[in-house]
């Protein structure tokens, strides 16, 4: 949902429910893997009303994930666009994020995007041709969370989202 879809031309009215706000925040995408929302990723832990303030709680994927600041800014902008909704963003480290928190929807979107979703490394399938047992080229790929593999069938290299 965009701010424009909210009742009252983006102004917060009493009909902007907590579910609307959660939906708005949940639509924020990961800046490095823009097919995934922070909800798909499991980075979004909760959206709660505390007094009159929306409290958004997020958990970083990796300690040094440079996307976290961007995600915070994007959440803030989404809430501001929806009518300057009073909010604060809290980062919680415990329990630590794991790839198990990526939703089924997230797995599907990753595969469609050409990134093998997180599974045990021996169960990885090529996202192009579904051939099993690709070869690992490098443990570390274009972002901290990915490794680089090459398909033994079609020969295409691809990113694998490491199980973590």
């Amino acid at each position, binding site marked *: 949902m965009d701010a424009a879809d909210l009742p009252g031309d983006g102004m917060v009215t009493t009909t902007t429910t907590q579910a609307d706000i959660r939906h708005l925040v949940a639509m924020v995408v990961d800046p490095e893997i823009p097919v995934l929302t922070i909800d798909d990723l499991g980075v979004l832990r909760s959206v709660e009303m505390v007094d009159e303030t929306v409290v958004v709680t997020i958990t970083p994927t990796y300690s040094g994930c440079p996307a976290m*600041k961007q995600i915070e800014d994007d959440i803030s902008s989404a809430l501001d666009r929806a009518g300057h909704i009073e909010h604060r963003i809290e980062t919680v480290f415990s329990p*630590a994020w794991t790839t198990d928190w990526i939703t089924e929807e997230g797995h599907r979107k990753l595969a469609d995007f050409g990134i093998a979703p997180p599974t045990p490394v021996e169960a990885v399938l090529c996202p192009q041709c579904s051939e099993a047992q690709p070869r690992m080229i490098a443990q*570390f790929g274009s972002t901290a969370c990915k490794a680089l593999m090459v398909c033994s069938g079609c020969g295409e290299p691809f990113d694998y989202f490491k199980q973590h």
Partner: protein
Amino acid sequence: MPAPDIDPDFHKILAHADDNLILAHRLGEWISKAPELEIDIALGNFALDHLGVARSLLHRAGEIEGEGRGEDDLAMLRTDREFFNLLLVEQPNGDFAHSIVRQFLVDCYQLQLWPDLAASEDVVVAGVAAKAMKEADYHYRFSHGWMLRMGGGTDESHTRAQTAIDDLWRFTGEIFEGDNADYRTEWDQLIGETFGEAGLSVPEDPYQKAGGRIGYHTEHLGYLLTEMQWMQRTYPGMEW
């Protein structure tokens, strides 16, 4: 040498933060200069992991201190005498073997440190440690793999790895000061197994150098801080 006059809780968290911050900076120096693209990316990844840990711990340290200092103040506006990292992590990168040996020695320590801190009463420290624990696992896999490859590789790689061990060994005793004493046995065992498999040996020279935990550093830290801090000192108030 006098111990620093500083709150022990603040000091403890700063020491862990500084280990990771300084090591992150050293690893970052490899970016664009590593022997292969994959190694370049791997070392950059490790730098980011250590930097992330450092940021969270520095932020927490600032809260414990209660003087209003944030992560930027603590990282960028302390002098060398106010840093409490291990001497090992500030040692220059040297050749690839030196950097890998340094990383391996630290990884063997952090593999034990993080599970311990994950049980800390401080929820922030516990959360950061739980995260860092998983990262230390793959740092170790990488550095351990290279120890075996260098030790059992060519005469050249073996000599370089052994030279790096001989150079850096004197900074390892410091790891086990204070609360860390319990890690020594398992650390020795991890090191011994890997060195054994790689045909490398533990130096016989017992000389050990310490001082990092009380702010007495080798000359290298000052140069590192000069480079790391110049931007913040030139443009005060800049944020990451």
